[in-house]
C-alpha cells in the first residue's frame, strides 16, 4: 500500500499582479469591462475639460483685492467683492461698531448645534442649554441691558437672522407639531378632521404663499391698532409651515409604536396624557430624530424665502451688496460664497443625520 498523502512544500505565491495593489484597484473599479472603461474615459474627459478652467478662474486668475468691480475685470473670479463686503454680507445693517454682538450670537448658535450632536448631552440639560443660549442671543441682538445699546430687530440681517429664523422656527414648531400629530392620531373625529385639514392644507401649498399670507393678511387678521413687525410675521409663517411638516414626521414615530405599549399603559391605569407623555412620546420621538434633523435642514434652506417679503437674511444681504453700483457683475462670485456657507451648515447636519440613522439601525440589522 502506497502512501497517497505526500508532504508537499507549501509555496506562498503572490497574487497575480493585476488583482492587487493600485493597479488591481484601478482594474476592479475603473476598467472592469468594456462598458466601464468607456464610462471611465468619458468621465475623465469631462473632468479634464471642466476642472482646469474652473480652478484657473477661481484661484490662479482670481483677483483678491480691488477697489471696485471695474478694477477687477479680468479672466478670473473677483473675490475682492467678498473681501470688501464680507462684514455687510454676514451682519448686514447691524450697527458697524456693534457687529461683535451678532458674531457672538452666531458663535453661540454654532456651539449649541455642535453640542446637540453629542448624544451624551441629550436630555433635560440640553434643553436648558438651548434656553440659556436663546436668551443670550436675544440679549446680544436686542441689547438695551448690561450697557449694550438697543438695536431694533428691523436692523437684524445676514447670517444671524438666518439662524434665528431657522432655530426659533423649529423650537416653536416642534410642540405645535406634536399636538398636531397627536390630534391626527386621535380617536375624536372632530379633532382629527381639523388637524388633518390643517396639515394637508399647509403641506399642499408652497411656503411662499404662507409667507405672503403672513406679510399681507396677518395685519388684516389683527384687531385695529395692533401691529406686528415684519420679522415676527415671517417667523410666524415659518413656524406654522414647519409645524405641518414636522407633524408628519412625528406621526411616523407614533405609528411605529407597537399597540402593546399603549395597551400596557392602559392596563396600568394611566390617563391619556400620562400614557402619551411617559410611554408613547419618549419612544416615538427617539425613533424620528434622523428625519427631524432632515426637516431642520429643510427649514434652514427655506428661510431664504423671507427675502421675497423684504427681510435681509444671508441671501438678502448678498443681493443688497450686489446692488452696489461699484460692484456690478459679481453675482457669480457672491452666490458661490453664499452657497459655500449654506453648504457647510446643511452638509454637516445631513452627514450627522445619516450617521445617527446608521447608529439607530445597528441593532435592527441581522
Amino acid at each position, binding site marked *: 500500500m502506497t502512501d497517497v498523502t505526500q508532504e508537499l512544500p507549501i509555496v506562498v505565491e503572490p497574487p497575480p499582479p493585476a488583482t492587487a495593489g493600485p493597479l488591481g484597484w484601478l482594474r476592479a473599479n475603473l476598467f472592469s469591462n468594456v462598458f466601464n472603461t468607456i464610462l471611465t474615459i468619458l468621465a475623465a474627459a469631462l473632468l479634464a475639460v471642466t476642472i482646469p478652467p474652473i480652478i484657473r478662474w477661481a484661484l490662479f486668475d482670481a483677483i483678491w483685492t480691488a477697489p471696485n468691480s471695474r478694477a477687477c475685470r479680468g479672466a478670473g473670479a473677483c473675490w475682492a467683492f467678498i473681501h470688501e463686503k464680507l462684514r455687510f454680507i454676514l451682519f448686514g445693517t447691524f450697527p458697524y461698531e456693534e457687529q461683535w454682538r451678532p458674531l457672538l450670537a452666531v458663535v453661540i448658535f454654532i456651539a449649541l448645534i455642535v453640542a446637540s450632536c453629542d448624544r451624551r448631552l441629550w436630555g433635560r440639560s440640553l434643553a436648558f442649554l438651548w434656553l440659556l443660549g436663546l436668551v443670550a442671543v436675544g440679549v446680544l441682538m436686542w441689547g438695551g441691558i448690561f450697557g449694550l445699546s438697543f438695536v431694533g430687530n428691523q436692523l437684524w440681517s445676514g447670517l444671524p437672522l438666518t439662524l434665528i429664523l431657522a432655530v426659533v422656527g423649529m423650537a416653536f414648531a416642534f410642540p405645535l407639531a406634536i399636538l398636531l400629530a397627536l390630534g391626527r392620531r386621535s380617536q375624536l373625529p*372632530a379633532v382629527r378632521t*381639523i388637524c388633518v385639514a390643517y396639515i394637508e392644507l399647509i403641506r399642499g401649498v408652497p411656503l411662499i404663499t404662507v409667507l405672503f399670507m403672513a406679510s399681507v393678511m396677518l395685519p388684516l387678521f389683527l384687531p385695529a391698532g395692533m401691529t406686528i413687525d415684519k420679522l415676527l410675521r415671517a417667523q410666524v409663517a415659518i413656524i406654522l409651515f414647519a409645524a405641518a411638516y414636522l407633524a408628519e414626521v412625528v406621526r411616523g414615530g407614533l405609528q411605529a409604536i407597537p399597540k402593546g405599549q399603549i395597551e400596557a399603559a392602559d392596563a396600568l391605569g394611566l390617563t391619556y396624557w400620562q400614557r402619551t407623555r411617559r410611554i408613547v412620546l419618549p419612544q416615538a420621538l427617539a425613533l424620528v430624530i434622523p428625519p427631524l434633523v432632515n426637516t431642520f435642514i429643510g427649514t434652514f434652506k427655506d428661510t431664504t424665502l423671507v427675502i421675497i417679503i423684504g427681510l435681509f437674511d444671508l441671501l438678502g444681504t448678498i443681493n443688497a451688496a450686489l446692488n452696489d453700483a461699484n460692484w*456690478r457683475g459679481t453675482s457669480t462670485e457672491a452666490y458661490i460664497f453664499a452657497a459655500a456657507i449654506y453648504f457647510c451648515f446643511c*452638509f454637516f447636519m445631513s452627514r450627522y443625520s445619516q450617521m445617527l440613522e446608521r447608529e439607530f439601525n445597528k441593532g435592527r440589522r441581522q
Partner: protein
Amino acid sequence: MPTDTIPRPTRPSPWRNPAVRSMVVQVLFVAAVLALGAFLVHNTVVNLRRQNIAGGFGFLDREAAFGIGEALIAYTPADTYARAFLVGLLNTLYVAGLGVVLATILGTVMGIARLSRNWLVSKLAQIYVETFRNIPLLLQLFFWWGLLRETAPAPRLAWQPLPDVFVSNRGIAFAVPSPDPAYGWMALAFLVGLAATIGAFRWARQRQAQTGQQFPTGWIGLGLVVGLPLAMFLLSGAPLTLDRPEMKGFNFTGGHAVSPEFAALLLGLVIYSGTFIAEIVRAGILAVSWGQTEAAMALGLHPIQRMRLIVLPQALRVIIPPMTSQYLSLTKNSSLAVAIGYPDLVSVTNTMINQTGQAVEGIAMIMAVYLTISLIISALMNVYNRSVALVER
C-alpha cells in the same frame, strides 16, 4: 346569603363616561377653532371696510393693464385679470411639467450612476447629489439667473456650447425642426403604433395564460412605436430642415428661444429636484435584496426579464410614494419664479394683488390652485401606486 351586604355600585358620574367626555372635548375644541376663525374673519372684514376694499371676485373681469413677458396663450395688457391669472397658471404648469420630466430623467441617471461599480462615475454622482441638495433652491435660482443675465455675453458674442445653441444675456436660442405636415402624420403613426402595442400586449398575455407560449411583445412593440413614425418620416421624403437661430440686429431670430428667467428656473428646479430623485431611485433599487436577483437567475430569466418582472416592480413599490412628494414639491417650488421674475401663477397674482389690493382673494386663488394640483397629482400617483402595491391578505 351575604350578597345583599355588597353595596350596589352607584352610577358613575357622566364625566367618567368616555362617550360623554369625548363629545364634550370635541364640542369645546370645535368651538375654540370656530371662535378663532370668527375673530380673524371679523377683524379682516372690519379692516377691509376701513381700507375701502370691496371683497369678492368681481375684480377678475376688470382690465389687467400690465404686461406679461412670456405667455403660452395670446395676452395683451387690455385683457382681464382672469386671463392674466390663466396665463400665470399655464406658465406654472408648463415649467412644472417640463421640470418633472427632466428631473426624473436626471435623477434616475444619477441614482443609477451612484450605484455604479465604476468608482469615478459613482463619486461624480455622489458629489452632484451632496452639493446641490445642500444649497437652498432660491440661491441656485439666483445663481443661474445671474449667470445667464449678467455674466453671459451680449447676443453678438454669444457662447455656443453646442452647434446651433446660443447662450447670451437675452436667453438661450436653439435650432428646432421647421414645421412640416409630415410631423402631424408621424404623431398619428406614433399613436397608432402605441394602440397596436397595447393590443398586442393584451393578446400576448391571454395567449400565454392559455397556451403557455410566449410572444416577443417587447420587440414588436418597439418596432411599432418607433418604426411606424420612422416609416412615415421616410415615406414623406425625410423633410428635416432645421430652423436655425440667426443674429439679426441686436438679437437672434428664428429657432426657439427661451428667456433667461425661464431657463434659470427650469435649470434650478431640475438640478435641485434631481438630487432628491437620485436618492429615491438609489434607495428603491437597494431595497430589492440581492437574493431576489439570484432567485430570478436560478429560474433562468434573462437580464431584461429579471429587471422587468422581478426587480423593477419591487423597486417601484418603494420609489413611488416619495417620488410623488418630490413631484409635488417641485411644482410648489416653481412658485419661487416670483423671485427671478418669471411670470408664473404666484408672480402674476402678486402683481394683481399690488394693483387691486385684493390680497385675500388673490392668496385664496393661489392656494386653491396649488391644493388642486396637489390633490390631482397625489390621486393619480395613488392610482398608479395601487397597481404596483403589494397585495396582502
